[in-house]
Structure formats: C-alpha cells, structure tokens
C-alpha cells in the first residue's frame, strides 16, 4: 500500500461513516480498514458526528438563524430587578410578622447614634400592626410599626384615597408631643406600601396619625394589643 492509497482511503472515510459509499468501494475500504489502525481511529471519530447528521432538518439548515429581539435582554434585566425589589419587600414583611428587629449590622450602627440622640432604645418591643377604624367610606389605612434603635420604622398601607393625594404621617407620645414620620404620595394602581421612619421610639409611641386629603386619621398604638381601632379626631 502506498502513502497516496492510504490518503485516498482516508478521504473516503466520511462517505463510509455516513453509509454513502457504493458497495464495491465500501467493501474495498473495509478491507483496508482491517489492516490500518490509523484509519480505524479516524473512523471512530467520524462515526459520532455522522450519526448525528441525519437528525438535522435540511429545510431548517437553509433558513437563516433567528435572533432574539434586541430589547429582550433589557426586559429580562428589568424583570429581575423588579423581582429583587419584591423579594426585598417580602423579606421585610416576614421580619415584621415574626416581630424581629432590623438587621444586626444596621442595628449596631444605629445603636451608637441612639446613645447620643435618644434616651431609650426600644429594639425589644414587638412590631405592631395598627388598623385605622373610623375612616371615610372606601378608605382603608393600615400601618405596621417596627422598633429600631433610631426610632420607629413605619410601613403604611393606604387604599381608596384619590391618586396623587399627599399623606403626612406622624407619631405622638403620651404627652401629646408630635414627631414627624415624613410624607408620601398615594398612587393609584401601584404598590400602596410606603416606608417611613420617625425618631420617636415605638415604646414611647401612643398614637399614629395620617393627614390626607384634608382629613386627619389617628389610631392609638398599644403595647398590649397588636390591633387597635382608631377614631377620626379632626374632620376637615
């Protein structure tokens, strides 16, 4: 056998692996393979891919590859960002439900501030849910108060007021002193939760009030009961 013969046989191995050689050539190559370990090895390499090729659909090969729309990546990123935000909120809610304080690291930093600014740290009192009772028709207000070293974290859930309504939230202590908890705007159709904070310690908090749409709604905050009903004190 000459080198050229061997090269010719080798070039036929593709057609052989695919079963496309005419019978006479096939028999002759089979005879060559018997005594040629090099061609045997080469054939083994080609057989794998030769077995896969028939799975392909010729029509699909000739159709150009499809590309995803240009904005799909951005849409996925936006969805992940939204999911992340939702998860963050859910985590905070879970924390409230079980009456746990804030993250240890945050609490540690805040505690240093508390030594300077606040006489008492109320981290040990449980979180409280306050439902506002006598509110106008269709309006529903709920607050969850969470104790922190810096004061009180307030989650407000408002429904039924006009979209865009400015809501001013405050806490009051037993002596009637008012501590602002900031403002938010209620937006219809969006997640109605607003996150606020006030410097008044939860253990010192006697009332929570919301001023919205010309009315003020106030509900007592009790350490003994998690739920309390409020009374409208200041109709417009």
């Amino acid at each position, binding site marked *: 056998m000459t080198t050229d013969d061997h090269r010719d046989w080798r070039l036929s191995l593709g057609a052989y692996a695919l079963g496309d050689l005419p019978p006479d050539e096939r028999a002759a190559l089979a005879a060559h393979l018997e005594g040629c370990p090099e061609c045997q090895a080469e054939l083994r390499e*080609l057989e*794998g891919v030769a077995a896969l090729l028939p*799975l*392909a659909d010729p029509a699909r090969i000739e159709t150009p*590859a*499809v590309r995803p729309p240009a904005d799909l990546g951005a849409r996925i990123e936006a969805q992940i960002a939204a999911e992340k935000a939702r998860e963050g909120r859910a985590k905070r809610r879970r924390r409230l439900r079980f009456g746990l304080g804030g993250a240890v690291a945050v609490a540690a930093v805040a505690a240093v501030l508390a030594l300077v600014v606040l006489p008492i740290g109320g981290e040990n009192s449980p979180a409280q849910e306050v439902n506002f009772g006598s509110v106008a028709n269709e309006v529903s207000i709920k607050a969850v108060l969470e104790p922190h070293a810096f004061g009180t974290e307030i989650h407000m859930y408002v429904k039924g007021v006009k979209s865009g309504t400015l809501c001013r939230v405050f806490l009051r202590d037993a002596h009637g002193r008012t501590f602002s908890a900031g403002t938010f705007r209620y937006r219809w159709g969006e997640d109605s939760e607003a996150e606020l904070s006030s410097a008044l310690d939860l253990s010192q908090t006697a009332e929570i009030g919301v001023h919205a749409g010309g009315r003020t709604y106030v509900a007592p905050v009790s350490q003994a009961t998690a739920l309390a009903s409020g009374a409208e004190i200041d109709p417009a």
Partner: protein
Amino acid sequence: MPALTREREVREAYAAHSGELYGFAVRSLGDAGMAEEAVQETFLRAWKAGERYDPEIGSLRTWLFAILRNVVIDMGRARASRPRVGPEQGIEPSVEPLEQALVAWQVEEAMRRIGEDHRRVLLETHLKARPYAEVAAEMGVPEGTIKSRVYYGLKALRVALEEMGYDD
C-alpha cells in the same frame, strides 16, 4: 464559586447564550413570541437558582439548556391544557421528543457555522440523498472533491459542535 446570582453575571450569560437558547426555543415551540417568553423565564429561573449552579459539574450553557428544556415542557403542557377551538393554526412546533429536538437543533446550528462548500456537500449528498456525480457536476468539481469535502465537512461539523459546547 457560584455564578449567576448577580445582575452582571446574568447579563454576561445572556450575551453568551441567548442566541442559541432563543434559536432552540423557536424551533421547539414554533412561535417567536412564546420563544421570547421561554428565554425570559429561563434566565429568571437561572437567576433565582443561581446559587445552585456549580461550574464543577457542568458548563453554564448545559445548565441553561436544561432549564430551557423544563420551561419548554411546562409551556407545552400549558398549551396542551388549553381548549382547542377549530384546527391548529400558525407555525407548527417541532413534534419530535424534546431531547432529540435539542440535539437536532445543535446539529443544524453547527451546520450553519461550517464553511459554505462543506455545508452544501453534506446537505446535498447526505440529507438530500443526491448522487455524488450529480452534485459534482452542479458544483463544477471532480467527484473525488465531493468525497473529500464530505470527509472534511464532517470533521468541521464535529469541531463546530464541540465549540458550541455540545456534549454527548
């Protein structure tokens, strides 16, 4: 080291694999809109399970394809459970089993990636079962050249599959 828990990692994975995942989703679902949905769901699931991805066990590509496979199965189930009114319309999804469809799609993609001469020869002689002599005459080359192009074409196809990360 876990991957795909951060947005940057998702972005990189998307840049590297979205084309292939989308191509396979279109092939198996037969609908561009559903394919987009499937790819979006795949990356979302990958991100949520990102901590469980272990590069020691397999490539990111293989992992993403495994997720997409599940998404496509779920979407197929959802579609099957919807009541049908009248005959089915639109592009027909692939009817072969999903595993086989995944392999077939990879071979088709690898075929698109090899040289034009090699692709054409494999397509005409094997997939379309045309005689070598006829294809040789059409391409204006000796029959022996067709035979050697089949040989080199198969080798190129194998390399293309390997480069795509195909593991059998």
